[in-house]
């Protein structure tokens, strides 16, 4: 067990290094003078010279990468000249909101997906199953922003139930001052994540129900309710762990879009604004953090998986 965990952590570290390498290379795909791209069009020669020296742009590439890693390890994600802030401080103030948005959506999606998956598997091929599958199909096939806009159209514009814009406060706690503004963003992200989950949950629940031990449990006279509760649900937990690991990229991408549509201040929206203004340090900083979060999410999921299912040893 410890061997597995150690190996898995070793893998994760390699992947993290890979992510930093990719991000570093992305930085160097920028055309023309790197200093000019980052500082902006109004860079003076002195600024460019000092930038070059500070970041060692005249040094060989591997040395630059080493400096880049060193900076990362010390929490320095770069400096945004457009916003006159360090990327670290920017993310520090924006990420907690993302965690709330993503975390809430993930929890709600799981809370909905598991029972619905079980119900669908049990009522397989009956009307409820078809309806549920159809609904999640459509959800799954819709672009996230389209779903968001339909929700806005129905709930915010036509019926004035919820506001169309997310709470605009600059602090994290301020988000909860107007919780009605949180409803639509969280609902959109939840539905999108649920759609991803539902496909997996249904097939996994059907597979589990076909297992021999379920048949045995039923044969021994165990009430159906207990069969579902004790055996199916427990095994669904394993699927949940896998889902959480897999869903991190989905949630992050979804967050970007939801934030843009609802003007929800967070790392995704910062990335989007940075892209519009060619603010590369912010873009790269967010990419590194997002990559890191994905790797950690997968690592936790894999370790959780190994804890739950003794048969899984890599």
């Amino acid at each position, binding site marked *: 067990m410890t061997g597995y965990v150690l190996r898995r952590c070793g893998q994760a570290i390699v*992947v993290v290094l890979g992510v930093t390498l990719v991000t570093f290379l992305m930085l160097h795909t920028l055309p023309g003078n790197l200093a000019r791209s980052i500082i902006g069009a109004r860079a003076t020669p002195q600024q460019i010279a000092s930038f070059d020296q500070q970041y060692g742009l005249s040094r060989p590439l591997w040395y630059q990468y080493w400096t880049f890693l060193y900076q990362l390890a010390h929490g320095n994600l770069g400096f945004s000249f457009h916003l006159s802030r360090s990327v670290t401080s920017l993310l520090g103030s924006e990420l907690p909101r993302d965690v709330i948005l993503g975390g809430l959506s993930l929890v709600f999606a799981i809370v909905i997906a598991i029972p619905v998956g079980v119900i669908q598997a049990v009522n397989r091929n009956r009307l409820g199953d078809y309806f549920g599958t159809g609904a999640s199909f459509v959800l799954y096939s819709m672009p996230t922003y389209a779903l968001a806009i339909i929700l806005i159209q129905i709930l915010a514009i036509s019926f004035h139930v919820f506001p169309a814009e997310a709470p605009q406060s600059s602090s994290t706690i301020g988000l909860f001052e107007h919780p009605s503004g949180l409803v639509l963003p969280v609902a959109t992200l939840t539905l999108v994540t649920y759609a991803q989950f539902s496909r997996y949950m249904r097939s996994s629940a059907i597979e589990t129900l076909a297992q021999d031990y379920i048949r045995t449990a039923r044969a021994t006279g165990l009430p159906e309710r207990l069969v579902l509760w004790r055996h199916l649900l427990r095994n669904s937990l394993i699927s949940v762990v896998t889902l959480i690991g897999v869903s991190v990229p989905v949630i992050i991408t979804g967050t970007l879009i939801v934030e843009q549509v609802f003007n929800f201040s967070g790392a995704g929206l910062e990335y989007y604004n940075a892209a519009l203004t060619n603010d590369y340090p912010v873009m790269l900083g967010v990419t590194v953090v997002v*990559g890191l979060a994905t790797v950690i999410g997968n690592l936790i999921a894999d370790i959780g998986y190994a804890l739950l299912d003794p048969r899984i040893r890599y």
Partner: protein
Amino acid sequence: MTVPQAVQTGGGPGPAAPADTERPGVRSSALRMILRTFVDNKLAIAGAAIILLITGFCFIGPLVYHTDQFNPNLLSTNLRPNASYPLGTDNNGFDILGRLMIGGQSSIEVGFAVAAIATSVGILYGAVSGYFGGAVDVVMMRVVDVGFSIPVVFLFIFASRVFQPTLALLILLLGFVSWLVPARLVRGETLALRVREYVQVVRTMGGGSPRIIFRHLIPNTIGPIVVTATFQVANAVLILATLQYLGFGLPPSEPTWGSMLSNGITYLQDGYWWEVYPALVIIVLTVVAFNFIGDALQDAFQVRLQRR
């Protein structure tokens, strides 16, 4: 191991081609599986029909229904659906029905091209990685892991700021990030298959690695590959629509479904629903159709795998 007795003393052709009925050739059984899916599964038929219709709509439609999608007609902007404009016009005076047709062309082209590129690259990568195993496999799969860790949209937005995107570039970029899934899949399958007896037989008979990979391992993974390829097309269409909406895809003057959506959304509050919902419906229909087919194929190959 007994040498098969191929010599027939009685003359004549011998037992009539038992190879096909008792031990079906690998390729034909996968193909048969695919065809049977389309015959049995109603959703798959529906999906295929929808896709054929939409493809016809997008590529043959403009030949029949001529509209001008280049020159804005500022006299007829934001018109409701009526006799001369079946789906109304948008804020530039472009006929929406015609725009849907032409806009679909890029989406469908991107979808299929990306699926083709991603699947071919992925198959090759995964097969090599799974076949050789060991250190090669470890390194190659770590590369795939890194690829999975960086969300596609982020990578794309960055790339489209650095390089001005054309259709070809978009296809390349999308293929570049989409090959990861088939690669992982094929690698898993290859790992399982390379220990089979027939692989050992081929090696004993002097077959080299390329022969084993191309003639024996890859054809046996066709099933899941087809499933993945179908889902790739759906994903590509969705990602393209998302990028267009965010403004990071093709130039905004190009008609595409995603840009129609993002354009029309600003007019939703004015009640100009026809600028949004037709594009939305056709996107959803296309993606749902591909998902129907993909799911049906997946079910079919699942059963087959269980029977193995």
